[in-house]
């Protein structure tokens, strides 16, 4: 039986669009039909606008018939996490604070997707302001894992993962501050890429922690991730932290770059708390690379134990500042109870933000307070430098690192929501990458006995996404995980 359109890859669909076998309208209608059926169970979307998606599809078809196709993504439905701005569409960050906010401008990645002809389909659910690891912090209700609806798709970009895994989009974008693309990709059996800090513009991405945030793609295959990255990457004069670098043709590069590579296995990433099934799957993947002639070396990232603490100081400090603008004055939720300006601030924010957001604002405000700054924020920045140095030292010996993405597979909804610290531990293998500003991706490397996907994390060197994707491609080619779909 042939694979239904909604489960096919960007590469496959773009070939069929190019040959005229299918139209973008057909494809988009198929994805919308799937979305309508699946969405009540998965809740991957905060909103979607069928008429708008179909209009974009029609425009794509019109371009193609007049020979003005915009490339491999033209006519392909792509979903965006609801923290990425699209002019004229809601931008809620899954928060009551922005429940009625419509953004008047396009994010840079949105402009790039539009210029590539993508059919922008829907606003994808996530943890409120991208803070969380399960999408349970969404003010509009959690998303569900398409492989097991009682479980989380991960977070914070859970909607981006759930939509793609369930066939409600052909590719999606998420944002990754501490693992928010890679962990949901692992939980949902997808490829998820967090690019090097500075490779993709953050202009139009609702800021959670500015020095850690990075937009990246979710895809069904490494090749699709390469296509998506090629479109969204590149210097942007509107983002001072974006890097002036030449963007290679990742899709072409992954076909030409071949190993064997030297791969490092950081011993700190295989300690207590690692689920045995996850550990075994990752060991098996390491074995695969070895069998392909790759040299495998154990390496040490000695400051790994400080990653979580460092992250929760830096990320919350920046968040406390970034979220100060949501005050009910110019836009967003304003309390009806407010009597004066202090009320507007206090009541609007008390009503508009959820518990986890408040928790992080309070923590971040505390660590920046006079008298505590040196002990917390400044020290955390110093540790951050050491953490980055650990990685760069390892890269003197190896080309890339190989680790589990998450210590555990997708957990039950509600299982950890009462215990923030247990939730924070889900990110233990992913946050070091953000602190070090490195590129990393998660790709499927097996399933648990219970049928839950397991993710393999590959961590690369700064701005060497082409190599990272090539390493992943070598594994993916030799395995058939990508051919499995949730039985939804």
């Amino acid at each position, binding site marked *: 039986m042939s694979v239904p359109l909604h489960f096919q890859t960007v590469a496959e669909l773009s070939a069929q669009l190019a040959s005229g076998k299918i139209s973008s309208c057909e494809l988009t209608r198929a994805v919308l039909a799937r979305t309508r059926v699946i969405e009540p169970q998965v809740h991957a979307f905060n909103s979607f606008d069928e008429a708008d998606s179909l209009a974009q599809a029609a425009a794509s078809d019109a371009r193609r018939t007049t020979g003005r196709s915009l490339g491999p993504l033209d006519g392909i439905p792509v979903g965006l996490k609801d923290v990425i701005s699209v002019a004229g569409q809601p931008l809620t960050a899954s928060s009551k604070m922005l429940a009625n906010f419509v953004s008047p401008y396009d994010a840079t990645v949105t402009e790039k997707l539009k210029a590539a002809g993508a059919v922008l389909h829907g606003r994808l659910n996530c943890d409120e302001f991208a803070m969380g690891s399960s999408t349970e912090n969404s003010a509009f209700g959690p998303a569900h894992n398409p492989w097991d609806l009682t479980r989380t798709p991960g977070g914070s970009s859970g909607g981006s993962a759930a939509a793609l895994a369930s066939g409600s989009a052909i590719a999606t974008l998420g944002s990754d501050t501490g693992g928010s693309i890679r962990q949901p990709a692992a939980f949902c059996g997808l490829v998820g890429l967090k690019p090097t800090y500075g490779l993709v513009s953050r202009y139009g991405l609702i800021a959670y922690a*500015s020095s850690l945030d990075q937009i990246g793609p979710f895809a069904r295959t490494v090749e699709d991730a390469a296509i998506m990255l090629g479109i969204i990457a590149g210097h942007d004069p509107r983002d001072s932290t974006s890097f002036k670098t030449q963007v290679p043709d990742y899709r072409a590069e992954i076909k030409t770059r071949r190993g064997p590579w030297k791969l490092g296995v950081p011993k700190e990433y295989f300690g207590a708390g690692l689920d045995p099934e996850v550990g075994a799957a990752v060991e098996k993947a390491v074995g695969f690379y070895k069998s392909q002639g790759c040299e495998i070396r154990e390496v040490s990232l000695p400051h790994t134990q400080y990653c979580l603490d460092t992250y929760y100081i830096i990320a919350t400090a920046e968040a406390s500042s970034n979220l100060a603008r949501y005050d009910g004055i*110019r836009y967003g939720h304003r309390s009806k109870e407010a009597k004066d300006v202090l009320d507007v601030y206090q009541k609007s924010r008390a009503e508009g933000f959820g518990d986890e957001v408040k928790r992080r604002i309070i923590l971040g405000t505390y660590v920046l*307070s006079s008298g505590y700054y040196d002990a917390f924020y400044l020290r955390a920045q110093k540790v951050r430098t050491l953490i980055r140095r650990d990685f760069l030292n390892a890269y003197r010996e190896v080309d890339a690192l190989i680790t589990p993405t998450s210590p555990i597979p997708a957990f039950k909804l509600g299982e950890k929501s009462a215990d923030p610290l247990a939730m924070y531990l889900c990110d233990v293998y992913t946050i070091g990458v953000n602190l070090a500003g490195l590129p990393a991706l998660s790709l499927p490397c097996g399933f648990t006995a219970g049928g839950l996907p397991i993710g393999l994390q590959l961590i690369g060197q700064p701005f060497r996404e082409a190599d990272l994707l090539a390493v992943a491609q070598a594994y993916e080619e030799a395995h058939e995980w990508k051919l499995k779909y949730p039985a939804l």
Partner: protein
Amino acid sequence: MNYEAVIGLEVHVQIKTRSKVFTRVGAGFGFEPNTLTDPVVLALPGTLPVMNKAALDAIIKAGLMLGCEIAPVCKWDRKQYFYPDSPKNYQISQYDQPICLGGTVEIELAGPARNVMGEHKKIPLTRIHLEEDVGKLSHGATESQVDYNRAGTPLMEIVSEPAMHTADEAFAYLTSLRTTMIYGGISDCDMEKGQLRCDANISIRPVGATHLGTKVELKNLNSIAFVRDGIAHEIKRQIAVVERGGTLVQETRDYDGEAGTSQSLRSKEMAHDYRYFPDPDLMPVQVDDAWKQALRTSCPELPFDKQRRFLSEYQIPYTITSVLVPDHGLSDYFEAAAKLAGPGRAQAVGNWIANDLLRELGAAKLPLGAAKITPENLAALVKLIDAGSLLNAAAKEVFSAMFACGGEPAEVAARLGLTAVPTDTHELDSWCRDAIAANAKALAEFKSGKESAINAFKGPVMKAAKGKADPKLVDENLRRLLAAQ
């Protein structure tokens, strides 16, 4: 006991750039509310700041003019506090690494007389840093409104050391700083438009003491005159508190310039914790020597340096320099005209500018740029007078005509029939005789030794000559005839 005041000023100067400091939308004054905004100014979700290099250029130039040390790296911090005029609820500013450190502002105090130069001092600066301005609130009876046009305008904060001791020094400091910033093209410094704003930190101590007393921050000094009055008032208030046995508290006070009173805004206990931290959205900017050197070449001569040069190079009186120098345009106008007029004529040029040109501009309510008389025209006018081709009284008329319509002075004078004609000595002789004969009283007074009585004859002579007689010749002729009487 005698007290000495210690005063430090924090001056905010808006930098004159086309666009705002962290986005491309235009900056300016007097536009419809909330029209100089964009997603960045309004701090919409997802927006990011990008530094306007022109603003950094301007502050570095200002720093170079004031002799500051320029930091090798421009670093940005967030200053955090909630207020509706601040769209992000943090202000992008510079905390621990200001772009300019040290430097001085040269001031001149009032001299013993108006025509004598006063004492000069150099007031040391602590730092100058760059930040973004906030919006403007207006409060109605039941609601408040905010205009974000001003938000994001580049703003320099210039902090002096606590090194001034009188309200007059503070006044002189602000005047000099303002002139310097206008000279550099950094800002127009119009206080009415909020382009220059001043807060003062004031304390008192017994004369001879070296410690600093409890300081009071005085805000809302909305004009240079209010700065002087407000500081003088605060010094008096502090002395009065101490004299009657009270204790001063560290606080911020609001000065009401119209009423000449101040009231407490907040005490030290209510001071903000700004939770400064480096702005992760902005990369530090390296300021290398080539960059600084390029800006250094664009720095103009400082006003007081120019004044000293005018005094020595052109030998013009101090009073004239103190009219010309504070106005960059006017002093350039002077130099151009003085150079064209040639040696020995600079003072005449200066007089024409300081008296006639400024009077005409004032009467017509025009800026210098709108004057039709060019430096070339003025230089030619002075040369004509010097050559005896134009008499002073006639020259005034020629000047007025040139101010209104422009033109070469020789042509204007000819057109108005004001060119001095070589006087027929016979005719002049008869006018003088007639004038003396007509005024026996003045003749008697002159003969009895009252020298000034001669002037009584001059009027009738000039009237008969229709103003075209050379006053020097008239005087000589009258004296000759009077001596013969």
